[in-house]
């Protein structure tokens, strides 16, 4: 469970997160949307300590990110993350991309990590790509490898930072399918995305952010059919055309 309590963050003078409060319960899927520059990626990256924040606190399973004793390395092992531009390790083969963290961080044997990696590649539908380099894969395949890489650490929570916005349209679905499966399997997920189809299908809650604030929140129906704020109405009009 993640509790975000009165979190504020500044880049210099500019306030990028403004008193954000939110709770993500175990097994919940929360979709974060909003215009660019609204702070949604920053919020997501602050959940696993990649972005520090000045005020407030975030607790992951009761562990405070503001506590100087918190071990971020341990924390991040429990939180997988998927990035907009995949960020696979280009010098390692697909299988090595997935096994390197289990081998180096969890001290798993090569064979055990490799076996698990193959299972994960089956799960994301591309076991035949195991021996290729990321540069030889399509964007959609790379993003599925990135999801497998994150899952290899057996995280309790998965964070997605605009996982489909760098993809060609015909590849978006193959990535979303994997994410929907993951959501349905009970994974706790925080997803920054504009894919409203995905939000409608699996989101337990949708957060709309603007200028660092959560302007509106709702379940899919209430949010899509009847947004309260003008800003959300305008945003939805633009992206749903």
């Amino acid at each position, binding site marked *: 469970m993640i509790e975000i309590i009165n979190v504020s963050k500044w880049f210099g003078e500019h306030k990028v997160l403004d008193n954000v409060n939110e709770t993500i319960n175990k097994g919940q899927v929360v979709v974060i949307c909003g215009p660019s520059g609204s702070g949604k990626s920053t919020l997501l990256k602050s959940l696993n300590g990649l972005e520090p924040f000045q005020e407030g606190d975030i607790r992951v399973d009761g562990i405070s990110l503001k506590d100087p004793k918190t071990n971020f*390395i*341990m924390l991040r092992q429990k939180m997988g993350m998927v990035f907009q*531009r995949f*960020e696979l*390790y*280009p010098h390692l083969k697909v299988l090595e991309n997935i096994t390197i963290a289990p081998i180096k*961080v969890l001290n798993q044997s090569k064979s055990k990590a490799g076996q698990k990696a193959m299972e994960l590649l089956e799960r994301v539908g591309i076991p035949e790509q195991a021996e290729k380099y990321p*540069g030889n894969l399509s964007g959609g395949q790379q993003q599925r490898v990135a999801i497998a890489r994150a899952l290899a650490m057996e995280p309790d929570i998965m964070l997605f930072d605009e996982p489909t916005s760098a993809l060609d349209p015909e590849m978006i679905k193959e990535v979303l399918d994997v994410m929907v499966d993951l959501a349905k399997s009970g994974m706790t997920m925080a997803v920054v995305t504009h894919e409203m189809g995905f939000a409608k299908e699996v989101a337990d809650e949708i957060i709309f952010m603007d200028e660092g604030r959560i302007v509106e929140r709702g379940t899919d129906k209430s949010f899509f059919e009847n947004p309260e704020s003008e800003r959300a109405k305008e945003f939805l009009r633009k992206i749903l055309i």
Partner: protein
Amino acid sequence: MLNYDFKWSILWSDPYGGWILEGVATTVKLGILCCIFAMLLGIIIGTFRITQFKPLRIFAEAYTEFFRDIPLLVQLFFWYFAVPSLLPEGMRTWVYQEIPDFEFWIVVVGLSLYSSSRVAEQIRAGINSISPDQFNAALSTGFSHYQAYRYVIIPLAVRLVLPPLTTEILTIFKNTALAMTVGVLETTFMSQQVEAYTFHGLEATTAACVIYMIITLIVVGVMGWIEKLLAVPGLIIRKGADS
């Protein structure tokens, strides 16, 4: 009419041929050692320059500026003449007379430090060209900062800067010629010695030129091979985009 009496055969006559070969061996040894130390130190210092930890950053910046802003020749003189003179009399004599190949090791130190500052700048440029999210991705899988650099960032940065590193390695081999100024019997020194004994400076110096050319061409070949060996699909052309 040219009245220079060419006598190329002195280059392979005894003892001059042997001198030159000894010189080549010393040049190669010196160059290889300096390359290894310059690369290792350069990678460490270049990485320090972009860490979050400020004292390390300041140290690395001072290091880089110190060693790359002073002429190499002056640095060699500094290590060879100035530093030992800080030692007490007895120890100084001991250093110069008893340490085997003292001049050689002084040049290894001086040239490695000088070159490492230049390598560090190239490594820094390489690291800076890697997207911050690549580092974040490594951290997000539970890597420590050290592991993220060790397994992801440095291997990528080194690949990205291999072409300028090749030039740097060539420079190291060429800079070993300055070792003659502190009395290391390398190629340049030996060719000058042949000249002094035979008055055939043109042949001796030409031999040195050809030798350096051959050494550097071998380096270019080896580095080209390493570049191919480490080549990664899609890395330099376009990172991670749909193809």
